[in-house]
């Protein structure tokens, strides 16, 4: 009889734990893990460099989005389980203007205040097989003209006037991506380790974000 009472109580507690975990399970089920296109999914300025550490620190309050003047901060609304409601930037839609507001408003250490030149959202990479001036389809230079950091981030190749080349000072804000008139977007934001010139091949397109 005592064993039956114990089993009953054990069953009740198991059911209770199951009931308590159900909402979380629902959330996990409703938000399956999908891998975003890394080129359209770059971290915010001042974000913790490790994406897992960023997800641990971010509470999903949306303050960074609410203060962003160009409204470039997007959120994992429907996709992404661990990173649910965490922010990212899609530079092809709207790029960061390096105004520092999101870093200042973030209550946690997910975003920390960083001087502009030390921000590391990635680095711009140009596909020279698609960029208008590089393939000899006229002159452009939109990316160079709009860059908030100027010569130290992007300039024209020496003796190759109007052919843009990214320099090491680029912080990856993505304004060049947003402004690029070529529909195939020959300029992307990638990990710093991937270099400033696109190498063709399947492996070169993948990023660990």
């Amino acid at each position, binding site marked *: 009889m005592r064993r039956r009472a114990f089993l009953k109580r054990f069953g009740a507690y198991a059911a*209770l*734990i199951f009931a308590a975990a159900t909402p979380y399970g629902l*959330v996990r089920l409703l938000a399956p893990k999908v891998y975003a296109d890394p080129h359209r999914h770059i971290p915010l300025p001042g974000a913790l460099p490790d994406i897992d550490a960023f997800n641990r*620190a971010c509470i*999903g309050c949306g303050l960074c989005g609410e*203060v962003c*003047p160009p409204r470039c901060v997007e959120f994992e*609304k*429907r996709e992404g389980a661990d990173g649910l409601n965490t922010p990212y930037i899609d530079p092809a839609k709207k790029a960061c203007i390096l105004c520092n507001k999101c870093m200042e408003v973030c209550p*946690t250490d997910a975003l920390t205040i960083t001087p502009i030149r030390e921000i590391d959202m990635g680095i711009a990479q140009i596909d020279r097989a698609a960029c208008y001036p590089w393939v000899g389809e006229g002159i452009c230079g939109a990316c160079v003209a709009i860059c908030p950091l100027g010569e130290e981030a992007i300039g024209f190749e020496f003796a190759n006037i109007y052919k843009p080349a990214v320099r090491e000072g680029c912080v990856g804000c993505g304004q060049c991506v947003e402004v690029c008139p070529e529909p195939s977007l020959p300029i992307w934001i990638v990990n710093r380790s991937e270099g400033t010139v696109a190498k063709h091949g399947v492996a070169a397109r993948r990023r660990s974000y």
Partner: protein
Amino acid sequence: MIAKPVILRHLNKLRWLVLTSIFLMLVLLPFIHLYQTYVAAHAYDLLYPNEKLIYDSMEWLTAPFVSDAEHDLDVIKGTTWSGNLFGLQISDPLAVLSQISASLSIYWPFVLTALVPLVVTAVLGRVFCGWICPATFIYELNDTLAGWLRRAGVPLGDKEFDKRTKYLVLAVGLVLSMLLGSVVTAAIYPPAIIGRELYYAIAQGGFGVGAVFFILTILFDLLVARRGFCRYVCAGGALYSLLGRYRLLRIQRVVSQCNDCKKCNVVCEFGLDPLQDGFGQECNNCTACIAVCPTDALEFRIAIKDIPYQGPGHLGQTYRRAEKAEAES
């Protein structure tokens, strides 16, 4: 008999005013942000007609208060999950606790943002739930709707569960945050969901997955248990209950005024038992029972503990019959 301040009876109306204005604020803030982005872009001529409407109405609303809309309107930002109020950063204690357990480290500037709610809850109890929470606004309206439906003869669920379930939800949520390395409690905490989803829907072009969960909780309240989510599931409510356990300000029954009419028990959204002095840590000081009491037998007192059951009310039938029998014997 001490004369009772009349204001007590109207506190419930005040509470509704507060709830409504906070909810409206959460609707307004995304529109204000849209307006700010339009101003920052100097883009009035490029806007669509509906965006121009937003621009014009927000300009009309905010122009008396700010001169530089792009920057001055930053003084109020965020949601009840974490927000900025005139330079004061306030975060939900649940946000802080979950973030600590997710990252297994303490970031003090963030912990300090929960100081105000912590102190307020320690003194006033679970007032966040009754007076501020934007989900309470919707849940109470939902409960009113359920009342109308019941009166119209629609059978709705009124199951009762163990009130301790929510503490388990809180514990499981914190452990899962730790294991999964992300703040999972944010995904099932209605006030956080509402602020966020309103922002997504208005400024970001579409509801997120949280809206689905919130609709499920509304249906749970409607079809399974009255105010069931707040009573049995809400992790944040559980935390506030624990923090407000030894609150200073609590509602107590004046037994000499009570006539045992039971209206307080019926009106209590949290299923408490004011008629038998059963308030406990779940009481959120919402004052609905005070407002409904016909004999003013409920009032606020400063005390650390509830009084144990005082017996039937002195104006009630049971008490008078017992007294009469005693006098005759």
